[in-house]
């Protein structure tokens, strides 16, 4: 099977609608297909990765711990749009620290998150073959 460049673009907050959760479900299932996968978080989508989420008061499942498993699914390229963070008064410190282990370098732990500008992300998007936007 051909290998294509897949990008999942996450644009919505984690709760309020089901898009974030069902996007994550596609990413996890899609990982079995050994494609060239990257994730982008833009707009309110950056809230999906915030630390310390507590959903008790809304009676919904807190699925945010799942993001930390993405490295184990070999999803290692996670683009965060810098302007989206800034517009919301957030910094990288507000987000989960997502890492992956590089088999080729004795399982060295590496950062998955790549902070990019809006213009840089546009260039990365232009390189993709499949863009699934949620």
């Amino acid at each position, binding site marked *: 099977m051909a290998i294509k460049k897949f990008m999942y673009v996450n644009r919505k907050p984690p709760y309020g609608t089901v898009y974030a959760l069902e996007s994550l479900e596609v990413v996890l299932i*899609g990982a*079995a297909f050994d494609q060239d996968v990257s994730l982008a978080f833009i707009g309110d989508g950056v809230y999906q990765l915030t630390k310390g989420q507590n959903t008790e008061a809304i009676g919904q499942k807190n699925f945010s711990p799942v993001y930390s498993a993405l490295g184990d699914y070999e999803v290692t390229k996670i683009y965060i749009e810098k302007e989206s963070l800034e517009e919301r008064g957030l910094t990288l410190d507000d987000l989960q620290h997502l890492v992956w282990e590089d088999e080729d370098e004795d399982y060295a732990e590496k950062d998955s998150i790549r902070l990019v500008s809006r213009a840089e992300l546009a260039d990365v998007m232009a390189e993709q073959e499949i863009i*699934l936007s949620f």
Partner: protein
Amino acid sequence: MKFSIQINEGPYQHQASDTAYQFAKAALAAGHEIFRIFFYHDGVNNGTRLAIPPQDDRNIVALWTALAKDNDLDMVICIAAAQRRGLMDADEAKRQGLDADNIAEGFRISGLGQLIEAGIEADRLVVFGA
């Protein structure tokens, strides 16, 4: 060209399914191929056979069923999205011990891998809604 289509919104509330239908019809008329149509999120609701719209309105489910029949289309409803929204085929209803099923003719229920495969196999994956 070989297209795959993803539909992310349910019928009537959102125009995504209507637009996707018009796109599919136009693509087929122009001689293109449609590898698969994948229904995700509330888009799974496009596949219920129990929808009865007013007589002077379009019947979106019936339109899809007819288009699939005429063109031998593969229309897949995501099982994970379908289960949480109460969309059920006869086999799954039996397995879950439920007393009803509601999948319209021409649709089948399968996994998210079918969406990934649709992206890999087609020249273009076109997404409607969300």
